């Protein structure tokens, strides 16, 4: 597909294998009696890398939640300009000739404005992760619903949804996100979302979700088709359970492992997508920080202010890497057959 949505494909290919039944592995015999979830937890605990990235992700989430609160109470200060810390004669580079790192500003100050980099990265994480998470939720919910409907109803509905999936997957996504931004942000604003960044953010969330769901719908559809043939669904049917009851009582518990894995892998793709779109000029604009618009600004300082050039990029890389490794770890834990 495109340069910004690359995770999605690989996530899809491999997530499809999850929960494949494993025939006669000797070691499984030794630990019979535990539920799949207990098995997964046991495997997770042994997986050091995943435990580390789980901690990183947890930390990032806590930081993202706390950042706005800390900004309000003044511990973090992402907005205040510090003209006294930068040199107007050098294009606003920090006065110390480096990145302006100090005790008050552990990651330095932003060239041109003197704003605190740590605060901006922390709050940027809040906005980027909110965007990515919201888009992920839309993707997962939409994908699940479409996949379930296609898989369970079959026939014409299945054909119809499958063709929609084919078509959405055939659109050049990056280009669509870019080209649709002007008019769709207009529409979003007219629908009552405040103009400016709320509309910009809503646009990113919506289009990422709208173009992202087909992959997960395919996975869910595939899972449903294979699950549908299993006895417990047959049994539920023969007992006269309604379709709705079948979806939610019987199928969802069997689907949420792939959903969890896939969702974890979509999240970093969307964090990257936010950054890429910022670079192309679409998305939330400063002074509201996002990791994307911070990086878009910081790449201009590649040669002049190395720390400022690197910090936003490293922040994104750590987040993306952690979520990807977490997704891998979850997949391995939930699906012993997949090889690390």
């Amino acid at each position, binding site marked *: 597909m495109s340069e910004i949505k690359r995770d999605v494909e690989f996530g899809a290919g491999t997530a499809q294998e999850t929960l494949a039944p494993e025939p006669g592995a000797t070691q499984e015999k*030794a630990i019979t009696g535990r539920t799949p979830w207990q098995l997964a937890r046991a495997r997770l605990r*042994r997986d050091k890398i995943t435990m580390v990235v789980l901690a990183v992700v947890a930390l990032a989430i806590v930081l993202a939640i706390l950042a706005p609160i800390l900004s309000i109470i003044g511990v973090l200060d992402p907005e205040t300009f510090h003209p006294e810390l930068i040199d107007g004669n050098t294009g606003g580079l920090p006065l110390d000739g480096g990145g302006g790192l100090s005790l008050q500003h552990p990651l330095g100050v932003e060239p041109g404005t003197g704003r605190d980099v740590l605060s901006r990265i922390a709050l940027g994480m809040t906005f980027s992760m909110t965007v990515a998470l919201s888009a992920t939720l839309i993707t997962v919910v939409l994908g699940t619903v479409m996949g379930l409907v296609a898989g369970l109803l079959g026939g014409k509905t299945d054909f119809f949804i499958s063709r929609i999936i084919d078509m959405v997957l055939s659109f050049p996504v990056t280009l669509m996100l870019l080209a649709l931004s002007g008019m769709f942000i207009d529409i979003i604003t007219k629908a009552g979302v405040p103009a400016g960044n709320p509309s910009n953010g809503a646009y990113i969330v919506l289009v990422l979700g709208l173009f992202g769901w087909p992959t997960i719908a395919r996975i869910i559809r595939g899972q449903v088709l294979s699950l549908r043939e299993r006895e417990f669904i047959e049994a539920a049917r023969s007992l006269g359970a309604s379709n709705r009851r079948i979806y939610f009582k019987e199928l969802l518990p069997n689907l949420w492992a792939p959903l969890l894995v896939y969702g974890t892998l979509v999240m970093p793709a969307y964090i990257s997508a936010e950054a890429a779109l910022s670079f192309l000029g679409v998305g939330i604009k400063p002074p509201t920080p996002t990791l994307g618009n911070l990086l878009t600004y910081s790449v201009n300082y590649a040669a002049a202010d190395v720390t400022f050039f690197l910090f936003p990029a490293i922040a994104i890389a750590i987040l993306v890497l952690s979520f990807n490794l977490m997704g891998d770890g979850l997949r391995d834990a939930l699906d012993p057959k997949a090889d690390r």
Partner: protein
Amino acid sequence: MSTWASADPVSSGALLAVRDLKVTFPTEDGLVKAVDGLTFDLRAGETLGIVGESGSGKSVTSQAIMGLHRGSRAKVEGQIVFDGRDLLKIVDDDLRRMRGRDIAMIFQDPLSALHPYYTVGNQIVEAYRIHNDVSKAAARAHVIDMLDRVGIPNPQKRIDQYPHEFSGGMRQRAMIAMALVNSPRLIIADEPTTALDVTVQAQILNLLVDLQKEFGSSIIIITHDLGVVAELADNIMVMYGGKAVEGSSADEIFYEAEHPYTWGLLQSMPRIDAVKQARLQPIAGNPPSLINPPSGCAFHPRCAFRDDERLGCSSVVPRFEISDEHPTRCLIPQAERRAIFQTQIETRTA
């Protein structure tokens, strides 16, 4: 046969002599003892049946003989003496040269055991040419001949077909042709008929018998189904939980079986020669853990005679005396075992 296996594997005169074979796999949950101290002899031209349920270690044994565990995390100990050489001690490349040429293998599921992307002919020709420096055309002619001999009709055409274009029986015939293409001295057939229809099973087994006569090979046939080896095997070894529990000539196993597990296998086998059709009896319980095997006799949790206080099944470890002619890993005294078989088992089965 006077003893199950001789003390010295090299001078035993057997084509294959396995002594105290142990295969272990390290896993996250502990060490899996897949094969735990196996000993047997196989003479040239004879057939040994290894019988046991899945997880009993019979397939692992066959792969250990082929050296297929090399390069993996599995640890193989003991001796596997083939034609006077200990296969566990020779270098990889020598062993590789013996594979397919001296020892060949027929696998359980010919569909997955044959490469789906190459024609049957391609794969058999490859097996032939790796050990024989002949031209492609000569190899091809030889393979067509082999396919003909294993009963594949129209081999000139079939040689260029892919495995999925063959029926199950034909695929297994092709597998057999591949195994026999180098006229090996030992053929290991791992569940050769499990994936096949009953009618085809008989044909394949008959084919094996015929070919063995023709090529003079020894055969190890591995199965969970006593019925398969009934007509084929000279000797039978019953395995349970990675260990041999009973070994003897085929006749003795069928008519004088001594181990309660073998009895279970016999009872769960449909027999057309049964006087009256008794209800098939599955063996209750699950296969034992290979990491933490039950104490005492590994079979005791499933054994009908475990409550006999005087035997101490849950604490005393029974032995498998290879110097016996019919060694049996059971704590019940031999006389009682024979009595039980004659009074309780045979009446029901025969």
